[in-house]
């Protein structure tokens, strides 16, 4: 009995973790970073950031978001680092020291493989966090019904000390990326926010995205904005009110880079601060 419940807990843990990193997952768990503020003045500043995987925005109640892979890009293009990272039971946290004026990018890109196969009639899954290079060893001889899905998932946000800059928006050309038309640290509730999405550096047409206002716990209905990108990959978002929004875009295609993978899942998540006019 004891054994069984432990296994059950482990399975639940796995499900949550996968949901967090898999775009297109049916589960609604949302991975989010919540910066304390994104628009700062002065010569030098600190922000603090929470991270979690949960249904509600921005209430941690399930699982902390890992901070190991978090990268920082400074306005001059050099790499910065997060400080005081810690992970609790249901929330992680770190600080960021802004010692350079301009726009900073903070976040992670996860690439992984999700796969399953049958062996002797039994359904098996690739272990969590499997790497592309391991695939051949991970799928045993005699396996049938092999399905391999490649995933590329970004979760990042932007913070500006002083005047906004553009350096950190240079696309890498890999996966789903956001390029601002409206600077993410220049959003006000009475003006539309316009963003362009790219897949592998090219305009991502027909991408559906959702922006959800935090604080839904105190509203009867969540405040959401939905949009679909046009031929140029652009979306326009009219903000219902000021606040911190969680924005997610996800899609899939067949442009896999992993041998044997039949599908590629692409995800993009950011947190946007929309100010009162």
């Amino acid at each position: 009995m004891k054994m069984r419940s432990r296994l059950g807990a482990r399975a639940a843990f796995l499900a949550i973790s996968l949901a967090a990193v898999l775009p297109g997952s049916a589960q609604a768990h949302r991975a989010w970073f919540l910066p304390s503020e994104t628009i700062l003045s002065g010569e030098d500043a600190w922000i603090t950031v929470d991270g979690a995987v949960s249904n509600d925005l921005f209430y941690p109640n399930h699982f902390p978001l890992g901070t190991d892979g978090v990268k920082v890009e400074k306005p001059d293009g050099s790499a910065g680092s997060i400080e005081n990272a810690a992970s609790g039971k249901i929330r992680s946290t770190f600080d960021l020291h802004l010692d350079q004026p301009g726009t900073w990018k903070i976040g992670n890109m996860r690439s992984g493989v999700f796969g399953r196969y049958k062996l002797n009639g039994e359904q098996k899954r690739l272990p969590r966090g499997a790497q592309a290079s391991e695939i051949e060893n991970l799928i045993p001889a005699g396996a049938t019904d092999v399905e391999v899905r490649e995933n590329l998932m970004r979760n990042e946000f932007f913070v500006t000390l002083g005047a906004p800059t553009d350096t950190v928006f240079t696309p890498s050309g890999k996966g789903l990326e956001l390029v601002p038309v409206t600077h993410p640290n220049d959003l006000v509730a009475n003006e539309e926010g316009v963003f362009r999405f790219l897949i592998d550096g090219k305009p991502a047409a027909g991408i559906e995205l959702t922006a959800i206002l935090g604080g839904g716990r105190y509203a009867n209905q969540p405040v959401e904005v939905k949009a679909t990108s046009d031929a140029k990959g652009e979306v326009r978002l009219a903000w219902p009110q000021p606040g911190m929004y969680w924005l997610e875009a996800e899609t899939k295609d067949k442009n896999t880079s992993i041998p044997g993978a039949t599908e590629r899942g692409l995800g993009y998540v950011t947190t946007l601060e929309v100010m009162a006019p």
Partner: protein
Amino acid sequence: MRKTSLFALTGAATIASPAMADTITLDITIPRLSVAEYHRPYVAVWLEGDGGKVRTLSVWYDKDKRGGEGKKWLNEMRTWWRKAGRSASIDGVSGATRAPGPQKLSIPAAALRGLPAGNYQLVVEAAREVGGREVVKLPVSLGGKSASTARASGKTELGSVAATIKP
């Protein structure tokens, strides 16, 4: 991305307008508030012309805090910060915060140099630590032949605001 600066309008003005010798006198009342923790408000005063062009006229903030610490809160004047503050050099136009009551502010002709004649919004924004924020706008006209006064009033963080423009 919108980029503005203190002297953003200078170039356009040399073509568009005659030399202007207007001065602006502002009477700004800062309300006395009966609250447990009172801090004098940060105040920004600016002119907004056509096309969103902005010139900062005055910024009151906690100037004397050690190590420029007061600048940390300049972004609390959110509208000004976005439209002008973050890219402006405020050294020439800044002053210390002011106490509740009537306050007078004189904008010399030099501060308006290069602005084309025409209609503007004169905007006053106040933001108070552990308090609120308020923006008051007055329509004003620069480059006229006679003196004029515009008035408006805030409801919370600002009292009456009057701007007298003298040619």
